[in-house]
């Protein structure tokens, strides 16, 4: 197992180098001049050229990339053009917010998703199964933007139970995490349902039934262990997505996480921040995927990695 993990981590290195090159090119070739955006329409050419030189834009792209690579290898992501603060520090602060939001959202998503998914599968073709399918399909199709605003309108503005936006207390976390979690819960519910249904048709389930075991015992002890594998994969992917910045929800609720940082950076063409965030999201994805693979063997010990 340790060898497997070590091999996977080694394998990440070339991927990260490729990502760093692509993200660098992507950021630098995006239309929009950061200086023009920062300083407005009426900057004279002398000042413009001076700022351009200060930012190192006069050098060829490969020189700029070399400088960037050198910088990130020493753990420095540079200084943001927009906020003039250290990008690593900023990411450090905002990462905690995004992590908190992601965990809270996944908490709701897993509770709702697993319960609805398992129950729907167990009561297949019943009215509850249909309600489950219809409501999860509806939830998946609702734009997060609208859903978040609706929750805000009802629970913050009309009822005054929670703050509309911002951060700081547990109450601030509730509405954005529910907004995020709801969408994911629907995906998990549907995945769980179809996965459980599939496993329910396996021979060993039939055998267990023939032996006269109770259905609940069959589901909890035999079915879930096998059915959860694809669910874990999907949960991991979703977790990676959310960690990669729940852009819309963070915007709606003014949540100071990585998603809103990404939006601000892109709008300002803040190259150092954009590059750092893209790289960070990629690393997160790779790590989450690795953790997902490892967790397979925890759920089902028959799965072994060599």
């Amino acid at each position, binding site marked *: 197992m340790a060898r497997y993990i070590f091999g996977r981590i080694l394998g990440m290195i070339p991927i990260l180098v490729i990502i760093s090159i692509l993200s660098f090119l992507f950021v630098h070739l995006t239309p*929009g001049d950061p200086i023009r955006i920062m300083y*407005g*329409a009426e900057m004279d050419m002398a000042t413009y050229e001076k700022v351009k030189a*200060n930012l190192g834009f006069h050098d060829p792209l490969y020189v700029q990339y070399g400088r960037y690579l050198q910088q990130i290898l020493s753990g420095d992501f540079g200084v943001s053009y927009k906020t*003039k603060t250290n990008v690593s520090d900023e990411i450090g602060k905002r990462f905690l917010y995004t992590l908190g939001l992601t965990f809270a959202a996944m908490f709701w998503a897993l509770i709702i998703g697993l319960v609805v998914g398992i129950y729907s599968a167990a009561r297949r073709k019943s009215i509850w199964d249909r*309600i489950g399918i219809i409501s999860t399909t509806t939830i998946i199709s609702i734009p997060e933007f609208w859903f978040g*605003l609706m929750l805000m309108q009802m629970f913050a503005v009309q009822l005054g139970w929670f703050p509309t936006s*911002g951060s700081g207390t547990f109450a601030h976390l509730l509405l954005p995490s529910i907004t995020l979690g709801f969408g994911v819960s629907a995906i998990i519910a549907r995945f769980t349902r179809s996965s459980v249904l599939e496993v329910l048709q396996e021979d060993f389930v039939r055998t267990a039934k023939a032996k006269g075991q109770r259905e609940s015992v069959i589901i909890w002890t035999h079915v879930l262990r096998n059915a959860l594998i694809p669910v874990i994969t999907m949960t991991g992917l979703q977790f990676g997505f959310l960690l990669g910045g729940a852009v819309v929800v963070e915007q709606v609720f003014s949540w*100071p996480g990585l998603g809103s940082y990404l939006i601000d950076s892109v709008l300002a063409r803040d190259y150092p921040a954009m590059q750092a965030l893209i790289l960070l999201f990629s690393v997160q994805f790779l790590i989450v995927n690795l953790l997902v693979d490892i967790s397979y063997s925890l759920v089902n010990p028959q799965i072994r990695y060599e």
Partner: protein
Amino acid sequence: MRRRVRLLTVSFLMATAMLSACTSNSGQPPPTSGPAPGNAQQQEVPAKAVRNAELTVALEAEATSLDPWNSTDSNTLHILSTMFEGLLTLDENREVVPILATDYKLSADATSLTFHLRKGILFHDGSPFDAEVVKKNLDYVRNKENGMARASFFGFIKEVTVVDPYTITVVAKEPNSAMVAFMAHPSATFKSLKELQKKIDDPKYNLDRNPVGTGPYQFREWKNGQFVKVAAFDGYWDKEKPAKLAAILFKPVTEASTRVNMLKASEVDIVTSLPTLDARSMGTDPNLDVYSGPSLNMIYVGMNTKLDKYKDKRVRQAMNYAINKEQLISQVADGFGTAADSPLSPLVKGYAKQQGYPYNVDKAKQLLTEAGYPDGFAATLWTRNSTEFVAIAENIKMQLQAVGIKVEVQAYESGTLFERLDAGEGTDLYIGRWGTGTAEADWGMRPNFASDRIPPNYNNSGYYQNEQVDQLLNEALKATANSMAQQKYTEAQKVIMDEAPWIFLYVPDVVIAKRKNVLDVGVTLDTVRLQAAYKQ
């Protein structure tokens, strides 16, 4: 089956209730716009209200920099105006009045401006304000080596001379009667010499994050993406106008609906850049005041005058006649705007109302026919991809279609749009918005219509060149008598309106909302002024 039907009915009712909760305020009669909230009501401040409260303001975006020379966006000015002061400022009637100066005098030939400075003023860090501070500040911002965003704004200055510790003269490169307005701009404010020296000694020192001015509020904290906090400054020089609030919190809330909800839920006291649709419904809320009035901005459609089809003045005029501005304002700005009757907003000093282009499709068609385009032509209209701008573009497309001009709308994210305009390739029609920050005519017209302001990096993206306009603008600057300057500016506006290098659309309103218990909030030059604000 019956249970299923009941369930569906309940679900439907719940969904309807939720939807109505979100839209219950629409369709209400519009609020009446009035004077800036609190401006007219100079009430006596109750003793207990003094500095007992914290005010929260929701801004549409985060500040770009808290260095007045390094930010050009109006959003940041709301914050800066609480901490920084200049030699001059504009009062509620947009008249120039001294603040850190006691008086000023423009020389007879409009080449120099002399200020006598107020004595006994201290910066937030305890350092004194004097002529040396003013000189060092202006010398620093003008120096292109320092790469300040406002360097070109102060480009008119030839030198700054200290006459004595409290007298200073700003000498212009050439006669410039707009100098006074430039020195009254919110960018022409001063920071402590101690801070400036730190930057001079260490170029990496971050002036953007260390604002030290002379205003009634001093900087406390800036948490990225969350807030900028300023607190009352006890050593403020004007003992008659001290800060009345303990602190002000400026929160960036990019999502407009969230700003509105925050105000409704009493989480913020003031909201800037209120969506016009919400402004209508909020005007009826007894706890809220909605203020709307003309801004310094102008929304227009620029035309690439290098293209053959726009070379003929009649085509450009025809396009102006083809647009029903009132309909446009009511459809895309919910009525919060004024049809353009000059290239300048009526708030700009030097503005002179012109005849404009009343909606007249027949006249438009006739002019197009005369110009050789009886069947119109095809055009591409570039716009920013924001909802408001796309709506304007679609409306323009629809209206121009009526005279045979077939418009294809292409929406770009603003950074991309600017780059395309700067590149000057493929530009046809584009929607622009210009804010005359100085509130005087030169800055309203020169950047947009002067021959030397064509791209890259300047705003005359339609490549409009007209010697008469250039000459009039230059003469106006040289004019020492106000009446002479006004005459030249009036003439320039007349020529520009007649030449029609833009489709002049409308001046959008500034729309802000506040809770009723917040008083003495001013709105000057699109900036919310909170120096005198307090909470009841």
